[in-house]
Structures are given as C-alpha cells and as structure tokens.
C-alpha cells in the first residue's frame, strides 16, 4: 500500500472547524469555512478536546474531493478513546466544536527519517510504500539525513511535490523544492546518506552554494547494499571551497553492493563542482559497486580539480569483477585538471583498470576530455565543443558566470535526437523537466524533441 506524507515547514496551513462527517474510519469531513488550497493529501489535521477527554488526535488527509476531506485517524495521543471522527467529539469549554489545524506531517527531512526508522510508525503502515512529499514552504536546510533503517517498509521515496519541481533550473526554496544546507554534513558523509534498499530520490534541487566554508563534500552517498535505489531528475550543483582532505564527489558509492543489487542514476544535472585546494573532483564515483548500475541520461558539466596531480572525473564505474555498468545517453563536458590525462569523462575503474563489464553507448564527451577517457561505443560523440552541445549558458570563468550556468540544451545541439530509447523502467523516459521523451531521444538529462519528430516547419508555414 502506498501512503503519502508531506514534509514542509508550514505547521499552520489552515485552521478549520468541522461541519459534518460520514463514514466510519476513515471519515469524510466537511468544514464550516474554506480550507486553504495549500492543504494536500499527506498533510495532517490535528485537533484537541478542551472539555472532557482532553485528547489531541491526529488525522492523515488521504483524499480530497471538492470540499470533502477524507481523514484517517493515525494517533490518539494516548487518550485511549479508540477511532473516532473529529466532528462532534472535540469541544471547547462551552461545548462547541473546536477548530483543528492542518499541518505538514513532518517539518523537515530529518523528522521524516526518524519516523521511517520507527518499528511501529504512526502515520503509515509498517510495510507500506512510503512517499515523503516535500513542499517548498521554505528552503530545506538539512545538513545530512541518514536513511539507515527503514524497518519493514516496502520502499521509501523522497520526492518534490507536483508544481514545486525545479524544471531544470535552480531557484528559490519557496518557488521549488530546494535542499540548501548551511551546516556540516561531516566530511565524507552525504547530504542524503542512504543505507537502505528500495529508496527513490527524485525532482529535488540540491544546492551546495552555502557550503563553501563547510566540510560537506558529498551530496549523495550509497552506504550499504542500496538495492533498487533510484536517483532521478535531481539537480546537484554549486559546490566550491575546500571541504577538507577529500575533494567533492557528488554521488559516491562507499558500500559494496552485491552482484544481485541494482542502482539506477537517471536524468540528473550535476554542474559547477569546483575544488578549492589540491583535491580530485568527481560527479559520479560508483566504481566500487559490485552489482548492476544504470547510469542513463545524466548531464555533467564544469568539474574542476585543483592541484598538479588531481583529476576531474565525470563517471567512474565497474572496478570489481562481475559488476556491470550500463552507461548510456550521458553528457560529460567542461572537465578541468592540471594532471596529465586528468580530464576523465568516462573511466572504467581507476585509470581504466576496472575488471567489471562496462556497457557504454550513445554518450558524449567534449574536447576537454583526455582521449583515453572519451565516450566510446555505438553512437557516442567525442571531442564536441560547447557550441556543438549548445547549453543555454555555459561560461564558468568566475562566480558571476557560474551563477548563470544553465545546462539545458538548445534546439541546435548535437545531442538532440542522438540518444537511444531506453524504455520506461524507473521513469528513465521522463526528462529532468518532467517531460516524457518522445521520438528520438536527446543525449543528456534535458530532452529536446528533434525537428523530425515535430513535423516539417516549412510545410506548416506554407499551409498558413
């Protein structure tokens, strides 16, 4: 069973008094006044009795139909009164129905994670597919959330709410769902640190711009078996400064996985990762993964290492024998390294010494990549220029220019129509802006329909 619970800082969305009830748990409730339109499925309704049993009850909003709100009791606060409707049972001192308050179920990601870790959670069943739906009430500033134990839950998803997704450009935390930490994650830990199977992170803008003076150097860390983890449609960007003894790695596998485990990294933007002092940089450091990793449709741009021997890596995979890395439809561009052969767009284990299977095709590397690490395989494009790739904005010489980076591709990009159709498993066909790919796929996370897929403009013009 899938259960959606909301995550957001708005703990006082709407105060409303019930006017009617039907059903016997869950209850279909009407109210005496309009409920704020910000209230959605997954929010909670909290109401306290002031006259008799003094209980505070919590109800989960499970459906909304017009002015009918379906409320499921999830917590009686220890009152022991059993399952009862919020209408007619909660009175003030004059024995009139009291108002209850709609709130987000959880205040931040850490609050949600603590509840996921409970053996007997209140707001969802112990074996549910739980969807933590993030709302852009304010910027999420969680420095590090460690999903270490999901008890017996079937799956855990952390997702941005519809209408509050980034669309492929960075933005404010009140316009779209943004995680922008301000405190340390602890060096070599992830802002999202995952040690559970069946986990999905999607449509979140992870902005590291306020961490220049902090020790955080990793956005996402895979710490265990991580079987069927899917990281899709996220933006990860703007890491600067010197985080410490290890450089910035935006996604890093530190657990081994097992040969039967599958990890999927799909349709993400990773850009503007600039090391400040003598360290490597890497967008996707996945080489210790022993299972199958699918790296599809990602766009990686402007990865700058610092120091004479330090390398800049786009994607490193497939070190262990028996591991399988499927790497297709990715863009890796804008690598900067002072080391010889230090610009490594696609790396098969450290320095191409991997023993796993590396299935690569339809990838793009630009003219910054060292030849040994260029894209390879069927349909791949190498030595492309930024003009060929046609990002919306790609200048990176200083912070002002990096501020304007926009790695969505334009109509004239060589990436348009140059990718391969990878089906629809795990939503791989949904591009970073939420658009379903059609026709010939573009390489990279942002899909632009090829002219051949949109009709003949000249002919249409003639008809007009």
């Amino acid at each position, binding site marked *: 069973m899938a259960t959606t619970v909301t995550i957001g*800082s708005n703990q006082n969305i709407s105060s409303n008094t019930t006017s009617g009830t039907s059903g016997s748990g869950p209850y279909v409730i009407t109210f005496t006044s309009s409920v704020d339109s910000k209230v959605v499925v997954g929010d909670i309704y909290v109401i306290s009795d002031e006259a008799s049993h003094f209980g*505070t009850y919590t109800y989960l909003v499970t459906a909304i139909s017009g002015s009918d709100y379906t409320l499921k009791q999830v917590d009686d606060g*220890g009152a022991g009164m059993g399952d009862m409707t919020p209408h007619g049972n909660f009175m003030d001192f004059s024995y009139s129905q009291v108002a209850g308050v709609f709130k987000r179920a*959880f205040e931040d990601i850490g609050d949600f994670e603590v509840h996921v870790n409970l053996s007997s959670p209140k707001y969802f069943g112990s074996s549910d597919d739980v969807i933590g739906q993030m709302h852009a009430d304010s910027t999420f500033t969680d420095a590090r959330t460690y999903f270490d134990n999901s008890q017996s839950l079937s799956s855990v998803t952390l997702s941005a709410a519809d209408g509050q997704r980034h669309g492929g450009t960075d933005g404010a935390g009140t316009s779209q769902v943004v995680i922008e930490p301000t405190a340390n994650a*602890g060096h070599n830990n992830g802002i999202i640190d995952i040690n559970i199977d069946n986990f999905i992170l999607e449509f979140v803008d992870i902005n590291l*711009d306020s961490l220049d003076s902090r020790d955080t150097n990793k956005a996402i860390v895979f710490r265990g078996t991580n079987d069927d983890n899917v990281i899709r449609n996220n933006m990860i960007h703007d890491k600067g400064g010197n985080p410490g003894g290890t450089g910035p790695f935006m996604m890093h596998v*530190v657990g081994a996985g097992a040969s039967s485990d599958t990890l999927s990294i799909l349709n993400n933007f990773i850009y503007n990762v600039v090391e400040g002092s003598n360290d490597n940089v890497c967008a996707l450091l996945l080489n210790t993964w022993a299972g199958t990793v699918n790296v599809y449709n990602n766009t990686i741009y402007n990865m700058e290492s610092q120091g004479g021997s330090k390398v800049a890596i786009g994607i490193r995979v497939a070190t262990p024998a028996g591991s399988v890395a499927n790497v297709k439809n990715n863009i890796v561009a804008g690598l900067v390294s002072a080391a010889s052969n230090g610009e490594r767009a696609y790396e098969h284990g450290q320095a191409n010494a991997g023993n796993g299977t590396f299935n690569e095709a339809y990838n793009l590397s630009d003219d910054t990549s060292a030849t040994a690490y260029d894209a390879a395989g069927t349909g791949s494009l190498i030595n492309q220029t930024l003009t060929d790739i046609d990002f919306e904005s790609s200048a990176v010489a200083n912070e002002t220019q990096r501020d*304007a980076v926009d790695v969505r591709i334009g109509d004239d990009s060589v990436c348009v129509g140059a990718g391969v159709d990878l089906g629809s498993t795990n939503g791989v066909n949904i591009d970073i802006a939420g658009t379903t790919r059609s026709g010939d796929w573009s390489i990279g996370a942002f899909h632009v329909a090829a002219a051949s897929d949109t009709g003949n403009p000249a002919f249409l013009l003639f008809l007009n």
Partner: protein
Amino acid sequence: MEVLLKVNDSDDPNSYKDGDIIRARSLKEIRYRHAQHKCHITNFGFDSFGNRVSDPLLIKFFEKTHKYKLERLNSNDVRKTNIITGHQKIINTTPDEDGDMIHAHRFITSALKSNRHGIFKSSSGQEFWYAKTKKFQDIDVDAIWYDIETHTDFLKLDHNNSDLSETQKRYMLAMNCCYHVCEDGDHDDHDHIACLNCTCHCDLEECSEDFVADKSEPVTRVVDADEHINEVLHARKFQVPYWDFSSALSLNIDNIRNINKYSDARAVLAERPSAEVLTVDKVAAGIII
C-alpha cells in the same frame, strides 16, 4: 541556537541515542525560515495579465535574497543588474563576452506556466524578475524582518523559535541555548564563560554559525583512504544529557520520555542556558570511544 534532541534510544541500535542532537539551527536560520513563510510567493496573487502582483514586501524580499534583477527592455533585450555590486549589462539571444545570454520570450512564456512564478510587471509595462538566490551567509535576515515589521503586524521577536511538527513534539525535545559571557565579579563559583542558568549578570549572545555547524555531525572512521570511504560509528557526535538538567532547568523527565505528551524546553531569549554547558562532545567526554 535551537537543538532538537532524540528522546529515548531509537528502535535501531545503530541509530540515534537518547539525547543525541538530531538537528541544530541558528537563530538566523529560524528567523529566515519564518520570513520565508511571511513572504512566500503564494501569499501574493496575480494581476489580470497573470503577472505576480508587485507587492512592496515581496519585492523587497526578492531584492534581499537574490543576486540578480532582470528587466525586459524589448522583445529581445534584458537588463541584468547585479544587486550586490550594482553592475548592469544588457543580454539577449547572442552570448556576450561572458557567455551570458537569454531568450526573453521563451523564458517568460515558460515561467508563466508555473503558479509559483516570480514574473512581475513594472509601471512601464515591462516584465522583471529575479535570479540566483544568495548564499545563506550573505542574506541579511534582520533587514528582511525590518521590512516585514514595516509592512505587516508580525514582529521579529515573536519568531525566535521553530514551529515544531507533532512528531517533533512527541519524539524529540526542543531546547535552545546561547553563549554566556560572564564578566561580573559576583559569580566566583562558576566558569567565566560557561554557566547553566546563573543568577549573575551575563551577556547573552547568539551562538556563531560555526558553533552550530558541527552539532549534528556523526562519528565516523576511515575504512579505505584510497577510495575515500568512511564508516558511520555513531549517528551523532554531540548530545545534550537533558536528564542531568532536570533540576537546573525544571525539566520533567518522565513527561519528556512519554511520547503521548508534548515536550518543549525552549526558553525566552533572556533565559537561555549556556550552549557550552548544554552540548556535550561524546567523543571528547569519553561517552563513546
């Protein structure tokens, strides 16, 4: 600084322990979060053309939280102003020497499809909007609250605490603290920088961002230096042994540990206990090895 503590050990023996600091927030961060609520874009409506209403509070909020203002001049050109430096330039579909460019019509058309868009229209009828949020450390939250107090009845001093969720009130304990700087001569019985809840005259100061920054870190050890791999030994390095402060801070420990009861140990600004005394480094204290 406000801290949210785990109450009772977690069900998972490898996760949080009783008293662990799950989350630490500076006063600035708390006030900024409230300011984002007050100035939330969805609080402000649209004009008859679908542009966001140019409410003075919202415009001031955007000016203080973004780096750039962009103003459409004609069908192709956009004036881009760096709000911090005042530097201006004109950009359009042709990349300038910095590679900066914009398809104004395409951008505005796309943005207007979202009900959270920030496209405004000036008195002269041209669209303008803001881009790229400032780093948190560069945002003047006090100045934002000055604007909020000017345009609304909300007061900054009423927004010194986070709004807690139901689960935070039941499964966690919120406390707050600050620096105590005691320089009077009437407190010989305690340390000159650290007192818990003293009666002498202390200067109370908000904890620095750096002090707050490491309070929710885990304890780890390196297991493979070549691969930069570490292992999490303990979910948190810092704790507040709140049970030890039951007398000094008048805490009812039984109530705090009862998940059916709300708990909140936050004090008003003038009565906040010392951060140095309250927060304990479990490694340095030998609680974990």
